[in-house]
């Protein structure tokens, strides 16, 4: 039998994926898909303050444990010693900066709330003005 072409192989693989997953006793991949969805990129479209704040929240908590990974075990140990020696300073700064970030997020969230209220009020007033203008035009006739 000749080797399948690339396109045929891909089509067959797709078919096999569907069939394999439908078989009784096949592994449940729902948790894998959920875990991957959780790591998807977050796109902030222009003007989308709420998503931007959500993203800021992900960066708001500072971890004082800098990575000590290195290809050289000696450097790893050295980094670990430095990290232990400076932990009390790093921890204190991390807590303060995290608090500041969360406070800014609360302020940003309140600003977003206020903006949305003003936008809704603006839309309501525009509609009222348009209705009044409509009535005036009818009276003129």
């Amino acid at each position, binding site marked *: *039998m*000749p*080797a*399948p*072409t*690339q396109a045929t*192989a*891909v089509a*067959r*693989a*797709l078919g*096999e*994926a*569907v069939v*394999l*997953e439908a078989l009784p006793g*096949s*592994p449940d*991949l729902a*948790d*894998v*898909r959920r*875990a*991957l969805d959780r*790591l998807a*990129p*977050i*796109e*902030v479209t222009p003007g989308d303050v709420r998503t931007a704040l959500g*993203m800021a929240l*992900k*960066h708001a908590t500072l971890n004082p444990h800098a*990575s000590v*990974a290195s*290809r050289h075990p000696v450097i790893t140990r050295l980094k670990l010693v430095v990290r232990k020696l400076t932990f009390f300073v790093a921890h204190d700064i991390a807590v303060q900066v995290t608090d500041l970030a969360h406070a800014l997020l609360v302020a940003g969230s309140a600003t977003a709330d206020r903006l949305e209220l003003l936008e809704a009020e603006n839309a309501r007033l525009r509609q009222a003005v348009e209705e009044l203008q409509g009535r005036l035009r009818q009276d003129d006739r």
Partner: protein
Amino acid sequence: MSRPAIHQLVPSFSPGDAIGSHVRRLRRLFEGAGVETRTFVTVCHPDLKAECEPYQRASLRPTDVVLYHLSCSDAMAGWLLDQPQRLLVDYHNITEPKWFDRWAPLAAHDMRLARLQLATLASRTEAAVAHSGFSADELSANGYRHVEVAPLLFAVPDHADRPARPVPERGARWLFVGRLVPNKCQQTIIGALAAARRGPDPEATLTLVGGRTIGPYVEELHQLARALGVGEAVRFADHIPDAELDAAYRDADVFVCLSRHEGFGAPVVEAMARGVPVVALRAAAVPETAGDAALVLDDDDPAVVVAAVRHLATHPQLVRRLREAGLARAAAYVPERAGPVLLERLLALASGG
């Protein structure tokens, strides 16, 4: 008529990265062709100090040609706007910022700035080369008038020292090579490996070779592997010396690339050059780099990726065909063949052709 001098400008010059390697090979080609050339940089790796000079001290003749390697934002771009020399751009692509917003906002900001600089330089640039049709389209969309696709210069072995072998149905060794960054989607490969181990290949393993630049993302990858029960089956190999990289390719049964943004995708060619079958996602420049020498998937769902790898395991003829096609495709990128092609294009552009 004598050829004009062609000077290369590169923001960050390092021996370990793809652009640094490309610049150094290109310099040797220029010198071999009798073209006067110097390399000007913003920052330089200590090992390369003898090969470059700070761009702020560059004293260029008006008749010289400047070749700017663009991949990130740099003050050099602003400086170039005020220079009288003819400007060529070698575009290495800029990653879409959306991949970094979540993990590294500063890096995302740099990418947005780089894209602004890309657009700003368009009117000043006489001609540009890109290393894929994908990148060339981006240049054209940004207003670049004369754009050509030319090969990237990187280390591609001219023979495969890995013997031809089938993909095993059990215990397949998956490999991906590339920096641990969000656009390369290493998490999707980990997810697919977890699916494989729950299904047809409980002994499958994965090696991820690549430098760790975005700490929070790397931490998430480790957490994901542990959460999906494959913590022991995934090896994070970091940035490794060339000899170890060769060994990683030699040991691999299949190269799995589910990257969502690649300006070219050099590791795909590196895998092909070593005879490793490639399964890749149809995204950005990867399908044109892979051509018909890989299984190119339209979907990166774990079940589909697992089925594709399993398909290779059950179809040794297909693996042989992919190996032959891959070796032929990679041969075009061996520096001895790709170098003269790139040199000829650049010399023609520098001469106003």
